């Protein structure tokens, strides 16, 4: 049971945020009610904070998360968990565009589908989507893993750096420079270790692990002399 209940309704988000921060600092577990899909709820929350949003939330819920455990009952709008450094976010329903954009660490677990560009520019951490990931998911992911259990939309894993996109189910089509590899048993074990605590481990899965073909990593030449033409 939560210690504190904070009602959103039509109140200014800034005011709601200040109450959430105060409760978080005091180490209380928090339930936020009447969320009305408002934007910017639960931004920049600290480690040790445990918070549940009833209903759906708007953009950037859990953005810049710094260690909090965040539970969203239903759907989340754009940029859920963007730039999160650490912590755990659960989305009970669907996540909109750019879930986990530029995140550095921590885990985002989406029970439904996710919109386009899940994990765009992510630097680390894991995004697990039980449903299907939308088009261009993993776009230019620098690091970390996106794990989709229900297939992927078009342009999957476009222009990756060192991020990885793992998919079971259908992939509509691959993005630029995306290369499908057969994962080793060790690599699969790593992914299973991520899924296990979420109750999602299933050793019978047929994985495709998508990584960068590295064709876009080098524009032309790594030799400075080649750039002295003008």
């Amino acid at each position, binding site marked *: 049971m939560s210690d504190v209940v904070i009602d959103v309704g039509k109140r200014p988000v*800034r005011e709601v945020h200040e109450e959430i921060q105060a409760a978080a600092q005091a180490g209380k577990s928090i339930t936020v009610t009447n969320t009305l899909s408002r*934007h910017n709820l639960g931004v920049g929350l600290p480690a040790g904070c445990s918070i549940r949003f009833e209903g759906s939330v708007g953009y950037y819920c859990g953005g810049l998360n710094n260690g909090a455990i965040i539970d969203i009952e239903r759907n989340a709008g754009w*940029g859920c968990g963007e730039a999160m450094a650490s912590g755990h976010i659960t989305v009970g329903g669907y996540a909109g565009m750019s879930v986990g954009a530029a995140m550095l660490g921590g885990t985002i677990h989406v029970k439904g589908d996710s919109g386009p560009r899940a994990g*765009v520019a992510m630097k680390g951490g894991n995004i697990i989507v039980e449903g299907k990931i939308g088009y261009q998911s993993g776009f230019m992911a620098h690091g970390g893993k996106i794990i989709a259990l229900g297939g992927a939309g078009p342009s999957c894993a476009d222009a990756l750096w060192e991020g990885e996109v793992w998919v079971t189910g259908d992939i509509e089509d691959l993005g630029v420079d995306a290369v499908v590899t057969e994962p080793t048993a060790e690599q699969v074990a790593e992914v299973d270790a991520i899924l296990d605590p979420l109750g999602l481990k299933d050793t019978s899965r047929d994985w495709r692990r998508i990584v960068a073909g590295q064709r876009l*990593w*080098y524009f032309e030449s790594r030799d*400075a002399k080649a*750039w002295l033409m*003008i």
Partner: protein
Amino acid sequence: MADDIEGPYEYPFEEAPEDLVQFSDGAIEGRPAGVPSSYDQGGSTRWTPEAISEVHALAQLGRYQVRGYNSFNKQLPTWDDLTFVPATMTRLPLEGYREKCDTKTVLGGGRGLVENPIELDIPIYIASMSFGALSASAKEALGHGASKVGSMTCTGEGGMLEEERAASNRLVYQMSPARYGLDLDHLRRADGLELVVGQGAKPGTGGLLLGMKVSERVSKMRTLPEGVDQRSTIRHPDWLGADDLAVKIEELRIATNYKVPIFIKMGATRPRYDVAVAAKAGADVVVVDGAEGGTGASPELLLNHTGIPCMSAIPAAREALDECGMSGKVTLVAAGGIRTGTDVAKALALGADAVMIGNGAMMALGCNSPRYYDDYAALGTSPGACHHCHTGMCPVGVATQDPELEKRMNVPAGAERVARLLTAMTMEVTALAKACGKSSVHNLEPEDLRALSFEASAFTGVKMAGIDRPFDWGTERKG
């Protein structure tokens, strides 16, 4: 008709022999009569030697060229196309050598929304230049130099460098679309946040850092494999249009507890609309970077063929802010090709609240200074002509990640030169302001200027020298 030349006319003398008609008495053998210079120099205004060598370069490389520095487009106007008309009979000057002229500049306080607007002692600060494009020593020197004179620096897209944070009393943290090294801690340690949607040297295109400069430290800060050619995104990952941007700005305000101002930086393309949209979306400060703006590396074609000049962008941006009632609420910063205090004064008179300098500050650090001739020669250039920041082989240690070259960038000396440059530039601004009778540099106005060329008048709306009327299209602007 040539056919009719064989007319009935007959000379009253014997016809000249053909070799005499062909100037056999001294003309160059084998060359038909003509304008000799066209043989030596050619005459095509399109196929200049530069254009021909550009095609040769493209044909050899199979790609466009990339380089640093700034635009080589010869059609860009210069700040020299404007001149001041100081107080004479109709206005009273201030005593240039004695009376005070206020230079204090506040960024981002206009909406009354943020707890700590940025207060600068001077109207000039150092532009966002990333660690990666510049060496750590260069960044540190810029920070100390700016701090000494009450100015500020900006991180650029490569994340927050600890040396710069320590050196810079006021530091704006740039959030580029690639969001390198972005975290909450860095956001909260910044004195301002800048969302960059473009820059003057390459509007519509993301950052570029060639592999030679993606060193171990740079690659760690950007979470990139070492040595890759980093070509960044231009679209932000989690917002697309102005309505989303407004939500994003609120998020950043919440994350930083409404303490620091939010900047939006853009390349100058359609400032009259873009600036209005940025102001409406909630920015505290809008930075407009003209086509002359410097860069660490950009495709040559974008450097030379995109964007509009800074002098044309400022009045348009000011008009936009006036029109939506945002002048005074939103601070307007201009950049692009600003060299000295006179350029600053002109930008302020045209309507900027502050200016920032990139290439100029690098020159104070030593860029293009006449030393290490052999190393300039190895780059195929010489002091004064160097534009090779993209190679990472900067002869003076400013734009490099090579530890040996970086040693040439002496931090204390560089910091002092930056401080002196900013001081001298500010003195120049106040000298002009006082001559124009202004007790604050922010009171400079377009009426203090006259244009020396039709172009400058047409670009800015400033009156033509002598005739005292702006170049006029005779039509109302539509839309």
